[in-house]
């Protein structure tokens, strides 16, 4: 504590960070909660008393839960099979499969729903064939949503389970086999039990993501009402802030519960620790009954990813989707004419927000790991909170909190670029903090001490030793927050305005008008921008971080 007083600059920055966290994280959440308790300018519990009696609350809640559970289950199974194939079988082209499987993570999630419409919608390319087999069907609704959410968020389950399976020492499986267990028995008694905490983690994460998802259900839910979309419609369509806020709280409760179960309970039950260097993997002599289904699942899913994104490309060149299939470049021309401002705004605001997100995240990570002060745990907790809160809740919170002056914050932000930028910063900051913490924990303090011992000042030590070592993590944090900023929709859609608008919102607008070809063209442009940005950052990391590994998109 005494140390803090000796470093007034540090003290000031800690206080400033706490102030910002309070204003931009806690205050909006508080406003959502407060608004849900106010009906006709009166304090009133009726919204909550009506949760189980009024269908407009109850039905979306049940629907969202069903969607979350189904998508989480399907996504986790898919992710597990994929992770098993890549870590435990000699499947060829591992890099290719891994890259394809994780591709949906860096693309805006709702493009999957868009591709689903192009493939299976009323004028979908595959619709005639499928209806011949299964009869009349509609992609709009629960079935279509589960499909789309599984493709969009299954990759998250894959990444979690890939890490878990890779960390399970193959010697354990060898030991089981050595003691007489068959391959199936090894799987049932060793691999699976050890992966259970990881499976639970993956399930909960996909549950959170697909329940909180806004873009895909907005495009594809049809009459199947889910919380995120209903909250949006109540607020922007009916101007009913109170009801919208209540729906947001209904959305917040299960997702945040799942987040805390995942973070504080499941993570603690994990057996998986890296025990030295794993010996050769046990992938010799794999029986066909393991190879066949895992390989088939990998090929199938990869095929689906290619089909969906290929459909976007194909669709973007059609004159009028479902009516005129003549190939044309007109959509791209129109996209640039109509969408120029959106593109510029998106690029400008994301480029502004990204470095701030990165530096702030790294600074908070540095404070949390290397400094001791009262409220350190609180700082970490609050700054990670936005990660667990659905975008819809954050978005509603921001319009409630910043459309008027308050005692805490004497500016009106609604309608400005600042509300979008701050939202992007605070929403993506947990990524920066997490990669920063991971990087700093890897650096043994004795490395810094060695530098000081050899005569470097602490300033020089930071520049010459610490900075180069955390640079790769810093840049991968940057990469990820840029991707998130460019592809954000659920929170952003509440705070965009006539003056400041973003690509993702424009794409959603095209979809709303059934201009699927233009929507596809613009989605592709967005994907290309994201890929270019990622390669630039990758090259930068290659230059700066000597010996550092390449940027990992997902922490």
């Amino acid at each position: 504590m005494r140390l803090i007083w000796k470093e007034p600059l540090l003290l000031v920055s800690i206080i400033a960070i706490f102030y910002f966290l309070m204003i931009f994280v806690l205050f909006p959440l508080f406003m959502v909660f407060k608004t849900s308790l106010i009906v006709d300018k009166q304090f009133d519990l009726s919204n909550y008393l009506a949760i189980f009696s009024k269908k407009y609350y109850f039905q979306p809640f049940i629907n969202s839960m069903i969607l979350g559970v189904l998508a989480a289950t399907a996504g986790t199974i898919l992710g597990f099979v994929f992770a098993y194939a890549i870590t435990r079988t000699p499947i060829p082209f591992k890099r290719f499969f891994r890259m394809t499987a994780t591709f949906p993570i860096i693309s805006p999630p709702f493009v999957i729903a868009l591709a689903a419409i192009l493939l299976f919608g009323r004028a979908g390319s595959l619709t005639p064939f499928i209806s011949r087999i299964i009869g009349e069907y509609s992609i709009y609704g629960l079935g279509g949503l589960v499909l789309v959410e599984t493709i969009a968020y299954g990759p998250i389950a894959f990444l979690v389970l890939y890490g878990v399976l890779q960390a399970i020492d193959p010697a354990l499986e060898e030991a089981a086999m050595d003691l007489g267990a068959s391959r199936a028995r090894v799987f049932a008694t060793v691999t699976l039990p050890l992966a259970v905490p990881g499976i639970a983690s993956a399930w909960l994460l996909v549950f959170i993501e697909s329940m909180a998802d806004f873009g895909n259900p907005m495009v594809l839910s049809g009459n199947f009402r889910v919380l995120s979309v209903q909250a949006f419609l109540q607020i922007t369509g009916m101007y009913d802030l109170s009801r919208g806020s209540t729906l947001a709280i209904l959305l917040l409760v299960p997702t945040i519960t799942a987040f805390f179960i995942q973070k504080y309970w499941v993570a603690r039950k994990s057996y998986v620790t890296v025990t030295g260097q794993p010996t050769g993997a046990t992938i010799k002599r794999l029986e066909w009954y393991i190879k066949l289904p895992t390989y088939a699942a990998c090929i199938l899913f990869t095929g689906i990813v290619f089909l969906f994104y290929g459909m976007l490309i194909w669709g973007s060149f059609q004159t009028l989707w479902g009516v005129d299939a003549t190939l044309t470049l007109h959509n791209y021309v129109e996209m640039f004419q109509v969408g120029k401002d959106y593109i510029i705004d998106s690029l400008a605001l994301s480029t502004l927000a990204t470095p701030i997100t990165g530096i702030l995240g790294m600074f908070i990570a540095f404070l949390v790991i290397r400094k001791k002060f009262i409220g350190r745990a609180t700082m970490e907790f609050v700054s990670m909170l936005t990660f667990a809160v659905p975008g819809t809740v954050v978005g509603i919170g921001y319009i409630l909190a910043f459309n008027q002056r308050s005692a805490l914050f004497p500016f009106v932000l609604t309608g400005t670029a600042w509300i979008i930028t701050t939202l992007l910063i605070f929403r993506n900051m947990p990524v920066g903090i997490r990669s920063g913490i991971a990087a700093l924990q890897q650096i043994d303090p004795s490395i810094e001490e060695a530098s000081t011992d050899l005569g470097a000042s602490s300033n020089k030590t930071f520049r010459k030793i610490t900075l180069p070592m955390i640079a790769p993590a810093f840049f991968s944090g940057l990469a990820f927050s840029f991707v998130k900023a460019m592809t954000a929709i659920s929170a952003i859609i509440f705070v965009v305005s006539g003056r400041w608008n973003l690509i993702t919102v424009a794409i959603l607008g095209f979809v709303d008008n059934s201009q699927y070809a233009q929507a596809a063209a613009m989605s592709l442009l967005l994907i290309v921008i994201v890929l270019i940005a990622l390669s630039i950052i990758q090259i930068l990391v290659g230059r700066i971080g000597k010996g550092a590994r390449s940027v990992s998109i997902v922490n």
Partner: protein
Amino acid sequence: MRPDYLVLRSLVKVFGTGENIFTAVDNVNIEVQEGELVTLLGPSGCGKTTTLRMISGFEIPTSGEIFIDGEDVSTTPPNQRPTTMVFQNYALFPHLTVFENIAYGLKIRRDSKENIRKTAEKIMLLVGLEGLAERSPAQLSGGQQQRVSLARSLVMEPKVLLLDEPLSNLDAKLRVSTRLEIRKLQQRVGITSVYVTHDQEEAMTLSDRVVIMHQGKIMQIGTPQAIYAKPANRFVADFIGKANFLEGRIGSLASRNEIVLDIMGQKFQVLVQPGSFSEGARVFLVVRPESVNLEPKKPDTLTGTVQEAVYLGSQMVYEVDVAKNIITVEVANPQEHMVFKAGEEVTISFQGKSLHILPYEEAH
């Protein structure tokens, strides 16, 4: 006691394809007697672990056969082989208790519950794990984990017990006491064992016989004494203990089994196998540092200059320059011997019986 209980015949293992092929094990032949403990010893990358993994079934030989108790198991999957392995990092199942770990194989074998309990308890008593049955592996010390791993393998009563550097994760003191325990246990149970290590001291104390491997090939098979006293080639001599190498020439055959050696102009009479060397042949001589005697310089002897003298308490270690050959000399119990200083001129000598002669070509 079958002399050929475990047989490795012309065993070859090649990794990789095309340009990047690597022969990890190159024509290995070993016969292990029933109840014997044989150590595979060699530097890392010599093929010892690959050989062990072929015996356990985790690697399939590129060519050659493996027989256990007369049965060809070369391609039998590991779960159907009568072998069990003690892994280097123990590979204890972290989600099972000590008891469940030990009972794992018995359960797979579908022993009765009662039988499993009895057998497991007996083995836990044998290795000294009583009272720890309900602990999880994470709650055990390194030495205890090692014993669980050993118990888990022993309880299966395998025909061959395989140990893959089982002591390398223990600290130095525990390693010494544990290796004695393993040896006693192995002899008490009478189990045929193959033990892999890169630690020569471990190999010497534990083994009935040692197999020295280098670059996938067997350099020598023999008892610890034979390997130390009569290394088959320069690699073995250098790898096991410290060795001085001197060039010499067979001067004349004194009798049928005695030759006169010429080492840097000095003559030594040495007993050899009859007919093993011809007159005038160039040879390499292996002399262990402890077999060399130092005296103050005398005329008509092999002389040199002390380059370094290091006092180690229980012994004195010298480096002596003898006509540009550096000879290492260890003198035990320095209190009872004359101590020389760097720069002093000395006479070195050794007895004929502590010289080991290698044909010139074996040494290169």
